[in-house]
């Protein structure tokens, strides 16, 4: 486990409730300095509540959030000098233009780099004279990113920053992000639906599902252990069942199709696959690596309710 000096973000048993509904349930994770942590989850999974707690904007119902080893609820003011934030909904005062916003921030951060902000805004092509409220959603996001990076934050929190952005804007955002990381080694926590965008950036991935952190893993390890296996099955007599041939794997998702079986496994290794391929009845077995998006869909793609509603597929059904 990393020490507080090495840890940028730490959540300990974080729980957020709104009345009787629970947004986050007992979430614990830590993000090392310099890491790019992608927090994934479907809408309503609890990402935004978690981020608000992480930024000291909301008090968790239970547990606590630490930034750089310090409680963020009680020490928010001091900690925010080290944090840059791009919120899900750009929330800057609508009557102010980008330069006025930058000027406002300049008064609050001792290390504010006005030139860098202006350069970045120019690079984005944002009209700095237009009031924030009149900017397009993409421009708003770019302004917020420029403001978030203006003081050289040690931690950058991006809450679904690409939501509503077009392809060009997304690209610009990620380029800047990569540049920032390369220059300063900033820790990044990003919640997003744009999984392809962060594919090459994220060093660690967490998946929130119905308020619970169901996955928290190094991105490379994650991608190396998840595989899609497709094969024909000559053992089972019915299409709705499959046999014990997948027992060596932890099958996250299995679908029986006309041509055979399509399974996502979360503990893939070559040796097990060789054994699987040589199993009686398994024909034309293929294995394919998975993108982050595919892994996310496999892990978080169905809610408990949706899953319960589906017709269960019996493992080891009648032969």
């Amino acid at each position, binding site marked *: 486990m990393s020490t507080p000096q090495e840890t940028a973000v730490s959540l300990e048993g974080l729980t957020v409730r709104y009345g009787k509904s629970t947004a986050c349930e007992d979430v614990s994770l830590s993000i090392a300095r310099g890491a790019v942590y992608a927090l994934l989850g479907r809408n309503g999974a609890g990402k935004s509540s978690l981020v608000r707690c992480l930024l000291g*904007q*909301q*008090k968790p119902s239970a547990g606590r959030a630490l930034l750089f080893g310090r409680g963020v609820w009680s020490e928010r003011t001091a900690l925010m000098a080290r*944090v840059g*934030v791009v919120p899900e909904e750009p929330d800057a*005062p609508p009557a102010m233009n980008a330069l006025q916003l930058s000027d406002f921030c300049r008064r*609050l951060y001792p290390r504010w780099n006005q030139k860098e902000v202006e350069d970045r805004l120019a690079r984005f092509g944002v009209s700095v004279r237009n009031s924030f409220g009149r900017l397009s959603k993409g421009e708003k996001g770019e302004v917020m990113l420029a403001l978030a990076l203006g003081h050289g934050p040690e931690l950058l929190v991006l809450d679904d920053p690409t939501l509503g952005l077009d392809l060009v804007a997304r690209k610009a955002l990620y380029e800047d992000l990569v540049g920032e990381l390369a220059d300063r080694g900033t820790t990044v926590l990003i919640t997003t639906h744009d999984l392809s965008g962060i594919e090459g950036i994220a060093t660690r991935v967490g998946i929130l599902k119905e308020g619970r952190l169901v996955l928290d893993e190094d991105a490379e390890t994650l991608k190396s252990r998840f595989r899609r296996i497709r094969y024909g099955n000559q053992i089972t007599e019915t299409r709705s069942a499959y046999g014990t041939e997948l027992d060596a794997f932890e099958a996250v998702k299995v679908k029986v199709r006309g041509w055979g079986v399509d399974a996502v496994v979360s503990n893939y290794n070559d040796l097990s696959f060789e054994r699987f391929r040589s199993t009686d009845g398994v024909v034309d077995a293929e294995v394919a690596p998975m993108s982050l998006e595919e892994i996310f869909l496999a892990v978080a793609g169905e809610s408990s309710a949706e899953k319960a509603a589906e017709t269960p597929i019996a493992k080891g059904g009648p032969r």
Partner: protein
Amino acid sequence: MKGLIAVARREIAENRMALLAALIAGIGPIAVPVVRNLHGAHATEVRSVSAFFGAVTLAAGFSILLGFQTLSQGISDRRIGFFFARPLSSAAIWGGKLAGVASLALAAALLVTLPAFLVNGGNLAVDWGWSLWPFLALSLLLIPLSFALSIPIRSRSALIGADFLVFGLAALVVALAARPLVRAHATVALRWGWIGLALIVWLGFLVAGYRAVARGRTDIRAAHRAASRILWLFTAIGVLGFAAYTRFVLSAGPEDLTDQWGETMAKGSWVVVGGAARHRFDYQPRFAYNMESRQSRRLPDVSTDTRLFFSHEAKTLLWFEGAEPPYELVTLTVGRQAASAEVRHTRIFSSSRWSQVALSADDRWLALAQPKGKEPGLLSVYELGSGRFLASTPLSPLTHIRLFFPRSDLLRVYEIADVPGSNPVRIRIFDFDWAARKATAGGEIGPLGTGWLLLSPSPDGNRLLVRDPVKRSFFLADGRSGQTIAALFAPGWKARFAMFLSDGRISLAETNETQARFRILDGHGQETPGIGLPYAETIFPGGEISPGKLVVALRAKAGVSAWTSLLVDLKTGGVKTLGEGLFPLATFSYWNTTDPFAGPSPGSPASRLFFTPDHRLVEVDPATGVRKVILGNG
């Protein structure tokens, strides 16, 4: 502070259009005189008044509107997250936002007045001398109020029901706590209570607003919870404080009285004292106080204008009770030493709290005269113990009634015809036999001029001293027929007072330009040797300290401390100074009464009581002149 200023500046910048609107609104005050074709000083005044009201209205309006909108909207739609994502403390965000709103409201108010100020040549004074600044300051106080109120409204949580419940309960407790002071007409005391309560509740709103931001941050429901807790706490403190304050005000005892001139009576060892009390503002309690046992009993407050009646032997105190008609007569038994704890409701009612009451010497019969202006009044007799109605007889319209029981089976009534603007005044005398339900006409006195009419019957009812308001002199009349027995007029002398002494003689105090004197007359008005007194501008009787020894209060010139009390021995003619600055308590008992039994009986402790210039009530030993403080600390 840097953060607070930055937030405030941003708030002002964001709402700067409001200032432009205010400047445009400022044209209004200078346009009004033009539209109404006013010129000169009148136009200046109209511009000033319009600008004044425009400024106050705008300041209050902006305070309420922006106070309601600025911060809570940001919390409810989470836009406030922009500030919480910066190194800004909650205090800086809250303080900066509210300071920004206050600056805007103030600047807008001043901008409204600017055109009128310039057109008036730098003058914006309104005729009635009000200053704009206190009104603007009061308007700005609305900002935290408006902000804190906006939190529960925007949160739309069920907690708002609890808020209403708490405030409803608080209002109920405050109303209950304030009611005695309202009834006592203690408006100043009440006003300070309200101010204290308002200050605490306002502070509650201020702190609640801060806590909503500090604890709720971007969660409007959490903000509501935090605000409600503080509001409930401060409301509880305010309400309990208010209740404690009213309790403190109402707890004033006789020893707290600082000015007992308000209401006094003396009978036996009992005195009724009332007036201003220490630290109680205008609340004026009243007490029956036994100067021997030092026991006291609270009576209706002075400010309620409730008249009190002592029975002959000071066994009973009576008064009318109730906030509105009909008023019920209540009695309090005051024994020799102690008063009964219970006030007894007699079930005898009067339509007016100014009805005249007389009690027979044995405390058995009660006569109640209720004049009804232009309508015929009603004279009723009751049995006091049972409250049983016995008989009644009508009274003439537009009359004042004086009545008393010369004997336990006889009620004497003086019906004074006093038509406003009419002259002269006539006094009709009749006796009422309630057993026979019959009014027997006596005689009539008059015509007399209007003015200060004084009737002083002898205790047996046979004779009557009357002060002619026009001649300003007394005459002795037959108590039943009203026939003049003797004129007591002395050329070159002004009659100050006349009274029957306990031995049946008459004492008559007179003054002229250089001296004062006592004339002593027998029961038929025949002169006996008089007694010379020092010069006095005013002279009052103070009761008999012992039979034949009368206390009088003299004042040579105006001013309370100029009173001197003398002890006049009516047998020997000796005059002794009891003390400079002393004023006899018994004097109050003789004012505006026809009761021949008013005042302390000769030799009773109350006859030795005096007020000092520093508002103490002291008992003076007539032999030594030594003073003993009974009440008051000055």
